[in-house]
């Protein structure tokens, strides 16, 4: 069963001008967010993005950008308390 989270919140962005159509984003995405249409990447299902950052990290031309992080309330709370980025424990 496909599970979906909140709509219209993710920071994922794709600049079609910079895309060279290498397909890495599609290869690494665990939620099938990207599609390759006539040699260019496209955002097929933006709301399915979990902001893991795999696509942006592996994009050789920085066409894909996203503020990557963990979607974890506990980590966010710890980050707030310590005044740091969200961090899981320790």
């Amino acid at each position, binding site marked *: *069963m496909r*599970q*979906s*989270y*909140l*709509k219209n*919140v*993710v*920071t994922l962005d794709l600049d079609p001008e910079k895309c060279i159509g290498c397909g*890495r984003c599609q*290869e*690494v*995405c*665990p*939620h*099938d967010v990207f599609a390759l249409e006539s040699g260019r990447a496209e955002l097929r299902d933006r709301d*399915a*993005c*979990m*902001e*893991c*950052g*795999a696509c942006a*990290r*592996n994009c*050789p031309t920085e066409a894909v950008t996203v*503020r*990557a*992080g*963990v*979607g*974890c*309330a*506990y*980590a*966010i*709370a710890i980050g707030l308390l310590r005044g740091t980025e*969200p961090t*899981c424990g320790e």
Partner: protein
Amino acid sequence: MKKNDWIVGEVAVSGRGFPQVSTRLNRADILGSLKARSGSSRMSYTVEPGLYAVGRPTPDSPVLVSANYKMSFDRLRKTLSGLDLWILVIDTKGINVWCAAGKGTFGTDELVARIAQVGLGDVVKGRSLILPQLGAPGVAAHEVLRRSGFEVVYGPVRAVDIPEFLRAGRKATPAMRAVRFGLWDRLILTPIELAGILKPALVLLGLLFVITWIRGGPAPFLVLLGRAGASFVPFLGAILAGVFFTPLLLPIIPGRAFAWKGWLLGMAWTLLYLALAARWQDWRTVLLYLLLLPPIASFLAMNFTGATTFTSLSGVVKEMKIALPVQVISAGLGILVLILTLGKAL
């Protein structure tokens, strides 16, 4: 280094010996997994980083890359029976691939350094590595190629698909690329959630013991304990609604935000308890539980976002900004009712 019984031999290539690992898990491996799942040894369950052999690999065999969390490593090797290949274990401080990639310890720097440290270029002829797809948030494939000369191919999400992936000429099907989060995946995570709530739950039980003691006056210890236990039941239900039933029923609970889903189940439990056990007899009790129980379930359910495979940082931040103040205010009012009624609302 202590002797590991999952090392069953040695494979020699160009004058060097590499430990050969078993593709079957023994009783110690399975017990270790159970312990890590329950939270007792989770942070020290590691494998020494380095190059390992599966079967009888040659310089032409494929190279898989893995984290040095023992459970990840075990899940990988048990799927590889009958294959001949190398496993490069990189140092992720005992953290699994996905979480380590998020932190950057399963990352470009460590991978490039580990390739050099084991002298991988002298062991194998090929210049490509198969990485678990879930390592991709930490590894920039084009950087690895530039800095080490090794090309990165992202394999399937699940280790169990690796033999099929290799047979298909290193091609992953869409199903191999997708992360799933089925009933079993959610269920296997609940013990660690329950273990995490154990201490606060015991503190609460102690608090209820003191309140019932003050309110009811001196009584034999067992009687007091029985009363405290009885007044703990509504709270226990709220806790289970948050850490067990919300994860279990996640896809069928209406709504999207986890805090909302948890609140719904918490409210359902509260109404059930008020109707069946408290029978709506005391308005103070009704008010107390309606205010205090649902936010407990809501808060705990919200914490489950970190265990799922599909929640985004932006989404969780958004839901917390709304849910957290509501939870605090609701629970605060509940505690106020408890204080103003001098504990009689319990």
